[in-house]
């Protein structure tokens, strides 16, 4: 999360791919990088628009927020390491630009700018206002633990009273909503009528759709499985203990008893098939329709062969 937003000069992917080009309909997109400065161009064959890239969103796949004539745009194409190369930005595949000026990307107003920078940077939004001056790229301590900077300053003077609240004390539902501020909460997805495979990106929404989700049970919170301070662990077996905390007769044993809340059932049904690599079956990997990004579906379930993607 620390690399959710980068500034020019800190972009190894584009440094290694100094010239990227893709043709989409009548338009040709080019991203060129010289001496750590990248430019984004779109051409219709007779005219070309070129803008410098100031904001690089994403640590793997990259999308750029572009500025032109006082307006901001989400770049129409993004860089996907899986290709590796350029293709339409996820979610923008259906845009139909009417001219070269529109082909640069999707214009984003101030509310959406606040959302983009509010999640991909820290201290970018203060009391609802976008403040580029205070922005720090990526997700820093202050992003989740508001007041951390003050606390650090106070601690130099042996004053520890300003410590930010301990997020671990929140309920699983609250933690889902907290993480969902960026990863999209259940109600955000429902309220916005987002449906289909694109929602696999919104883990709190998918998790809450799981039959086993219990907002009062700490064994199913985001932080029960993920440590937000380190990179996400991608080895399926590493999550087995988290699943077995509920889905094993042994879950009543000492190892998990400590975290089993009195309001939660001691354990759920155990799997008749296996006791390892649980997520490989019950949390399938789903490719987005563009085929360039794969996410783990957090809607935990018994997956039946050939079943449609459950909303």
């Amino acid at each position, binding site marked *: 999360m620390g690399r959710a937003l980068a500034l020019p000069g800190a972009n190894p992917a584009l440094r290694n791919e100094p010239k990227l080009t893709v043709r989409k309909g009548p338009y040709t997109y080019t991203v060129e990088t010289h001496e750590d400065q990248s430019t984004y161009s779109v051409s219709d064959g007779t005219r070309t628009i070129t803008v410098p890239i100031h904001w690089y969103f994403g640590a793997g796949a990259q999308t750029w927020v572009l500025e032109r004539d006082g307006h901001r745009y989400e770049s129409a194409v993004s860089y996907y390491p899986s290709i590796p190369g350029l293709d339409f930005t996820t979610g923008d595949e259906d845009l139909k630009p009417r001219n070269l000026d529109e082909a640069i990307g999707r214009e984003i107003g101030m509310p959406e700018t606040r959302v983009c920078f509010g999640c991909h940077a820290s201290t970018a939004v203060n009391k609802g206002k976008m403040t580029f001056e205070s922005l720090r790229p990526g997700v820093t301590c202050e992003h989740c633990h508001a007041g951390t900077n003050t606390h650090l300053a106070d601690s130099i003077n042996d004053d520890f009273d300003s410590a930010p609240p301990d997020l671990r004390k929140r309920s699983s539902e609250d933690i889902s909503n907290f993480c969902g501020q960026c990863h999209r909460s259940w109600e955000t997805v429902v309220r916005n009528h*987002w449906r289909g495979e694109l929602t696999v990106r919104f883990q709190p929404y998918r998790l809450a759709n799981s039959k086993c989700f219990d*907002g*009062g049970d700490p064994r199913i919170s985001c932080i029960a499985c993920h440590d937000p301070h380190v990179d996400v662990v991608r080895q399926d077996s590493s999550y087995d203990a988290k699943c077995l905390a509920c889905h094993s007769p042994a879950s009543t044993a000492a190892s998990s008893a400590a975290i089993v809340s009195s309001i939660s059932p001691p354990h759920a049904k155990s799997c008749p098939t296996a006791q390892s690599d649980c997520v490989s079956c019950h949390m399938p990997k789903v490719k987005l329709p563009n085929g360039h990004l794969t996410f783990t579906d957090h809607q935990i379930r018994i997956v039946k062969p050939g079943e449609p993607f459950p909303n």
Partner: protein
Amino acid sequence: MFVVDAVNTGMETVYGRRLGIRGKRHSAFSFTLLILAFTILVFFSRVCSAQANPASFSDVAAKAAAARDANDVPSAIELYQQALKLNSQWSDGWWFLGSLQYSVGDYAAASNALTHYLELTPNAAPALAVRGLCEFENAEYGKSLSDIQRALALGAANQPHNEKILRYHEALLLTRTGRFEDALRSYAFFTHENDANPELLLAIGLAGLRTPLLPKELKADQQELYMNAGNAAFDFMKGDKEAAHLEFQHLFQRVPPVPNAHYLYGFLLYASDPDEAVIEFEKEREANPSNTAAEVMLAWIPLLQNDGSEALPYAQKAAAEDPTLPSAQLVLGRALSETGDTKNGIEHLEKTAQLQPDNLEVHLALAKAYSKSGRKEDARRERLLCLEMTKNDTAPATHP
């Protein structure tokens, strides 16, 4: 077919009067197609087999169909009534009778016939839609809204023209029943085609200025004010925010001040610019301290920003001012739940759910509150209900 022509005329009457659509005959054709398709389906379906006197019933039913084909509406109505006396389980007969009665403006009788039809054929979207329109004409606004919304959910808006008719009536009814914000959301549908006309603007103005009336119920000397408010809201919703800003400034300068004018502007602004919206809601409260709806919005904005503590004082004030206002109970329930008092929060939310069972926001809040308090099954039930309520809302509200 006569039934189609007759129904067509009826739809033109309703829709033409409400929306002032140009080229009514052509545009009414699509709704006609819906009824035609449905009629053909009914025509080819089997006539009920259980008949006390098959020969007599068949004879009357055949005569009724012939009269209908001959455009002899009064005779056809009488013959269908006779046939249905012989066989009240003849669902097709009730549909034809209801359609014919609707076409001649006998809305009470049409509604009654369609009720019989729906008892025999539940979930028939066209019948629900036409019955809803009958109930609208009969001033049975609650029933009408319920039928039209059910018809929409069942796919009655299968043609653009049908959708216009039903959405427009839905919005009128939402306004008439005091659900002004929902009405404005419904009116947003009409901004896509930029098809404004004075009656539509007047209707939007009524919703915007929170006046639970139909356009025909408004006094003539008030129409200009409401039309101006509707025009400002329409321009905002279609994306011309500069024009809307100027029109709202003119509205704000009127003497005496227009109740709910700042509220309307704030409501339109809050999705894109919550800070500006807060200013407008505060101005509304200054001008009209008893405007509880503005106080509700002052609570709602921080709630959407996950700031229950900021929302709670506004929510408490709103609920104290007007305990019967469902939205005040909603914000209070949600604010309490999000600041740790889940038990009381749920109580307020459940009360709101009883008052407004089809309000999505209430069920979203209940799902969250139940989940927080460990009521897993209740939370799941509410979540499934929310997904069911939104399953036909296919167009994303914002870019994902």
